């Protein structure tokens, strides 16, 4: 790819970007949120048309005008937004063969028997056990991601793009994916790999390219780079410490959860958080962390159990009740649940505090603006103005909006569910700083994550969750990656 430029409504996302992949290599494409990685790859896979520039595959110039063109040229992509690439009400098998059904290669009539059999065979080869007749909407996020990966396998690809495939995967599943990538590489296919998890990148890739603000910054063999080089290239500055820790004094218990349960995902959780304390809950994907956070917040209604905030029983019936009692949640799926993408930053930030900024039901424009500018400044949200639509911000800044809307609610307990998912290292650090500051103000923090490193770096106390239960507790400094993983996957008491 050479000289690729692309702008969205006048804003340039790519400036004459250059990019090349060789057959049989794994090429990592890195960059901060909004650097233009996905955009570049969408152009390569035909989802977007470039404003300028050309694409050559095996020396031939290809006019990429639609995904069909890209597929014909052997370019396949596993897109970052999993849900945009799957048809929820169709079966796993059909989604795997989506490309084939969409193309003219299949005959007019479908043979369902064959389709299921082939899909089953394929999944078995990949070592996956997803029922092929199940509907996509019944799958977990990780399973959906695997279906997307399987889809690429059935095609005769020359280039395969993985845009943050590991975000929803557990360590084990990630390893599985890497084995698949190695196999592809061995068969001479060129692979583009995008991830914000730098340790993964260094583990698997042969070459690394870093982008910043739509420009290529460097391309080097992975063996010649250090993590710090990459971070410097990404951010244009270096990052002192990845996990800034602000020392706080830990006060009395502010959140006390007893026997909280719903179905098979959360089976009786007890936990406590004290003022100024950051408690991390770690677990593999599917351990039930998200469910737990939703129960605490009243987003789902618990079967049994109690939640007390600052000594008062919290109403678990609805988020409204939870907020009133002082619990707020920064949810995992920010674009769907955390923010309203089609509304301005201003309106998003004032949503939970409409009552505070209005008198007699009438909103005070000045108070609303005051709130927004305060939050924007305090969190360093990068936006041209408070009136900007939130959907146009980069991922990290969207996450800051999702956090920022709670700042002035006077909540006692902040629950964060994977707040750094898909967020670049710079923004990640910003978020850690915010969390630290909140703790310093005497808030109780419950931090749910599947990134053990984050928990180790950030938390005062780590709870390990497995299969809907809290199975182990570590104090700061006690835990290691290994024993966290041990409890998270085995879910049993320490072997004697």
């Amino acid at each position: 790819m050479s000289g690729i430029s692309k702008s969205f409504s006048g804003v340039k996302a790519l400036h004459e970007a250059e990019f090349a992949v060789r057959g049989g290599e794994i090429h990592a494409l890195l960059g901060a949120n909004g650097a233009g990685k996905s955009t570049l790859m969408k152009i390569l896979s035909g989802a977007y048309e470039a404003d300028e520039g050309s694409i050559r595959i095996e020396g031939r110039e290809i006019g990429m005008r639609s995904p069909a063109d890209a597929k014909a040229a052997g370019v396949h992509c596993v897109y970052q937004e999993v849900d945009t690439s799957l048809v929820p009400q169709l079966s796993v098998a059909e989604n795997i063969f989506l490309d084939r059904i969409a193309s003219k290669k299949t005959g007019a009539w479908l043979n369902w028997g064959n389709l299921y059999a082939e899909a089953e065979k394929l999944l078995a080869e990949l070592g996956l056990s997803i029922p092929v007749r199940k509907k996509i909407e019944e799958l977990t996020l990780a399973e959906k991601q695997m279906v997307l990966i399987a889809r690429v396998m059935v095609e005769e690809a020359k280039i395969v793009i993985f845009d943050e495939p590991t975000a929803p995967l557990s360590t084990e599943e990630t390893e599985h994916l890497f084995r698949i990538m190695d196999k592809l590489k061995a068969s001479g296919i060129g692979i583009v790999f995008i991830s914000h998890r730098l340790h993964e990148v260094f583990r698997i890739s042969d070459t690394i390219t870093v982008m910043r603000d739509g420009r290529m910054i460097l391309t080097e063999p992975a063996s010649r780079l250090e993590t710090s080089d990459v971070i410097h290239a990404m951010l244009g500055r270096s990052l002192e410490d990845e996990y800034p820790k602000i020392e706080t004094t830990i006060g009395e218990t502010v959140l006390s959860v007893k026997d909280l349960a719903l179905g098979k995902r959360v089976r009786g959780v007890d936990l406590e958080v004290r003022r100024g304390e950051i408690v991390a809950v770690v677990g593999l994907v599917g351990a039930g962390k998200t469910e737990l956070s939703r129960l605490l917040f009243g987003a789902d209604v618990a079967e049994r159990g109690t939640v007390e905030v600052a000594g008062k029983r919290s109403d678990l019936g609805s988020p409204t009740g939870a907020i009133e009692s002082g619990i707020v949640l920064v949810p995992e799926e920010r674009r769907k649940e955390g923010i309203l993408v089609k509304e301005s930053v201003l309106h998003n930030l004032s949503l939970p505090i409409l009552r505070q900024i209005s008198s007699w039901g009438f909103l005070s424009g000045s108070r609303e603006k005051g709130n927004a500018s305060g939050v924007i400044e305090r969190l360093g949200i990068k936006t041209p103005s408070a009136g900007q639509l939130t959907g146009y911000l980069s991922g990290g800044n969207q996450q800051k909006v999702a956090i920022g809307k709670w700042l002035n609610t006077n909540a006692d307990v902040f629950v964060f569910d994977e707040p750094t998912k898909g967020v670049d290292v710079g923004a990640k650090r910003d978020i850690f700083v915010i969390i630290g500051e909140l703790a310093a103000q005497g808030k109780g923090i419950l931090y749910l994550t599947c990134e053990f490193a984050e928990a180790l770096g950030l938390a005062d106390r780590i709870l390990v969750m497995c299969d809907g239960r809290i199975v182990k507790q570590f104090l700061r400094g006690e835990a290691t990656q290994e024993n966290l993983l041990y409890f998270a996957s085995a879910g049993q008491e320490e072997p004697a």
Partner: protein
Amino acid sequence: MKNKLMQFSFKYGALIFIGVILLFFSLYNEFFFTYGNLTDILRSISIVTFIAIGVTISLTVDGFDLSVGSTVSLSTVVTATMMVWFEMPLVVVLVVPLVVGALVGLLNSLLIVKIRIPDLLATLAVMYIISGVHKTYTKGYAIYSHMQRTDGTKAPGEMYKDFLWIGQGKLLGIPFPVILMVIAVVAVHLFFKYTRWGRQMIMTGGNEEAARLSGLRVKRVRTYAYIASGVLASIGGILFAARVGSGQIDAGAPLLMEAVAAVFVGYSVLGAGRPNVIGTFVGAVLIGVLVNGLTMLHVEYYVNDIVKGAVLVLALAVTFINMHRKRT
């Protein structure tokens, strides 16, 4: 430059279009641009505007209310029977249909919010039910002063003068329904722009789940929106009864599509691209002006529909071509 022009046409296209149409009709026909005719046009759209405001509100919380037409019908006959059959005091005459409209809204929200039937499906069903109910209530008859009842007796009451004034009277030379309409438009506009509840409705419509997780009681908000829609349709029905001096069967059915058309034209106003009260009002005015003016041009009555459709397409095309252009 070109871009600016596009932007401009996007934002003011619909308004300029109305201006041009007004100018054209005024030049073509000396009687068009007279105070009497213009206020009459406004009065003629007042009923549809009320219904359309209801539709706007339900669309704001991202719910389509197909039942407003039959709510108008029901409200019209209920209002008329309050006077003709029961000789109730004027307050009761006015309050009962409003309550009935609120109940229809409640029924809608019950089906949509509690039972979670998709909005179009639920309100279609309610449309049928209410349409049947209002005819069953009057046994299919229209309601008029001293009407003959099926048992051979005459109904005791008649439509009150005071009541008819609501639909036909003037205040300071302005038809009363026009005053009501303008108040309603302004009030609902202020409601959406400046009140907490209005904002809650907009946010709920923007993304229900995100709004819920921000602490809004979205079910309640949606319920209120449907109730408002029902009440506004009821007001439309009351005005209808006051205007025609009787309670007509199925009076509201043709008004549904008309109201929806006004709301949709309103999408184009000021480049909103979404339901908005000012736009709805402008849409209703545009349709009213067209109907009034086209008749003057000796356009055959059956051509009206073509023009109405074409204007709708034009207005929508300008909006959505632009909106789409902005995105890429």
